[in-house]
């Protein structure tokens, strides 16, 4: 690795601490997280866009299928799951693009901190800013679709496990597509095969809860997949970022 390069974080105040010239990895990740959150807050109007998208699509379903509460209640879990996946897509595309264009990613590559951990930090920031608002309105959307109150906690739990997983997988694809001319629908095509198991297990838990059966097994599968993705996805993401940056 390259050494003694200007770190991406603000240089540590040398006078007050005995820290070495480059800040430690936790410090750099914290700084990166803070930067991403501040940037998101400065453009907080954009935070509501995926949320608005989810509300609008949810409202379309009763029009398309008819307002039968029983029917809506039966499909609500799966519908909300798919809506969350779709609402995550547009934001995924821009996860690394701006940083690639303004040269920040090159600094990431040169930084002494492991690239995979910086990428993981970015995924966390992304999840906090684009997915968390979606989860907050989930109870409301569930109520619109007549989702049973018993099922709602299972849906939330499934989404809490499934959305970080999707964000991690999406980060790899977003990094891969960052160097391409336009991704758009390509990202959806690449995400679909990776999203299939996630959707299946999350839907399995919801379906089991709806029919009053034990729903823990699919959730444990999701948790296991999430643990695996936390380990592997940042590494793949780092490899993809290297390809995106090197001309």
């Amino acid at each position, binding site marked *: 690795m390259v050494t003694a390069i200007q770190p991406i974080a603000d240089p540590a105040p040398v006078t007050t601490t005995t820290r070495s010239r480059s800040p430690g990895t936790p410090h750099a990740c914290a700084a990166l997280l803070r930067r991403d959150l501040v940037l998101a807050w400065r453009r907080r109007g954009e935070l509501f866009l995926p949320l608005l998208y989810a509300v609008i699509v949810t409202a379309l379903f009763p029009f398309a299928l008819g307002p039968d509460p029983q029917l809506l209640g039966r499909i609500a879990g799966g519908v909300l799951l798919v809506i969350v996946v779709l609402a995550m897509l547009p934001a995924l595309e821009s996860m690394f693009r701006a940083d690639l264009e303004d040269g920040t990613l090159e600094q990431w590559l040169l930084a002494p901190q492991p690239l995979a951990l910086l990428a993981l930090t970015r995924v966390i920031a992304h999840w906090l800013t684009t997915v968390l608002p979606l989860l907050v309105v989930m109870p409301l959307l569930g109520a619109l679709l007549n989702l049973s109150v018993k099922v709602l906690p299972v849906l939330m739990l499934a989404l809490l496990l499934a959305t970080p997983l999707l964000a991690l997988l999406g980060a*790899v*694809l977003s990094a*891969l*597509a960052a*160097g*391409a*001319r*336009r*991704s758009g629908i*390509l990202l959806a*095509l*690449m995400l*679909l*095969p*990776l999203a*299939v*198991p996630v959707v*299946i*297990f999350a*839907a*399995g838990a919801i*379906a*089991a809860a709806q029919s009053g059966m034990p729903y823990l097994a699919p959730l444990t*599968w999701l948790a296991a*997949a999430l643990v695996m993705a936390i380990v*592997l996805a940042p590494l*793949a993401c780092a*490899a*993809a970022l290297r*390809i*995106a940056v*090197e*001309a």
Partner: protein
Amino acid sequence: MSRSYIPHWMHWLGSPPNFYRFAGAWRPWLMAAAVLTAAIGLYGGLVLAPPDYQQGDAYRIIFIHVPSAWMSLFIYIGMAIAGLIAMVWRVKLAEVIAMECAPVGAAFTFITLVTGSLWGKPMWGTWWTWDARLTSELVLLFLYLGVIGLYNAFEDRRRGARAASLLALVGIVNLPIVHYSVQWWNTLHQGSTVDFLDPARSSISPSMLWPLLVMALATHLYFFASILGRTRAGLLALEGGKQWVREIVAEQRA
């Protein structure tokens, strides 16, 4: 002095001009062998093999369908291995081979899906069902299409090849997960899944088995012949303007 563990012929073959000539010499023979074995296999399967006691003659699509299904997986593994070599050692030839595998693999996957649905209509009474095997084959097709799409989205071929190779590797991790999750999902929803007549598991008569194996050999031979030809074209496109390409063009003009 560090010793290389890679045999000399690999270094020799890894060079684009050498591979170009090597592939040009082997491709016609492989293609001829593929046509010959396909003819034998099809004759054995469509004429010599007896009709199935349950399915009659309709089962004969198996001689196209099952070898294609085997190839769809085999080519994906080959693509991922070539992609790994391209990612780690940046061998130009491996990049080209990995990317030329993708359309062939996608074609075999598509043939598998189409013949399966043609077979499914008279046997199950439906063109498509969300059965575990069908669904994972469909996901495999999307994986291939994603690799092709990503490769074509880059202006720089070599960068595109490396990015798409990484996607192929991610896909190979995902493939068993999809396979098992889809099986699981089906058993959750439907009491009994549709039983696919798997010739490898179900006892199959030898008179039906040998044409199937010959057809499998034919598809492999065809794949290798096709990859050699496609890689030749890919190398010419990638290396266009280099000295060895000029020499070849000059040779052919003369």
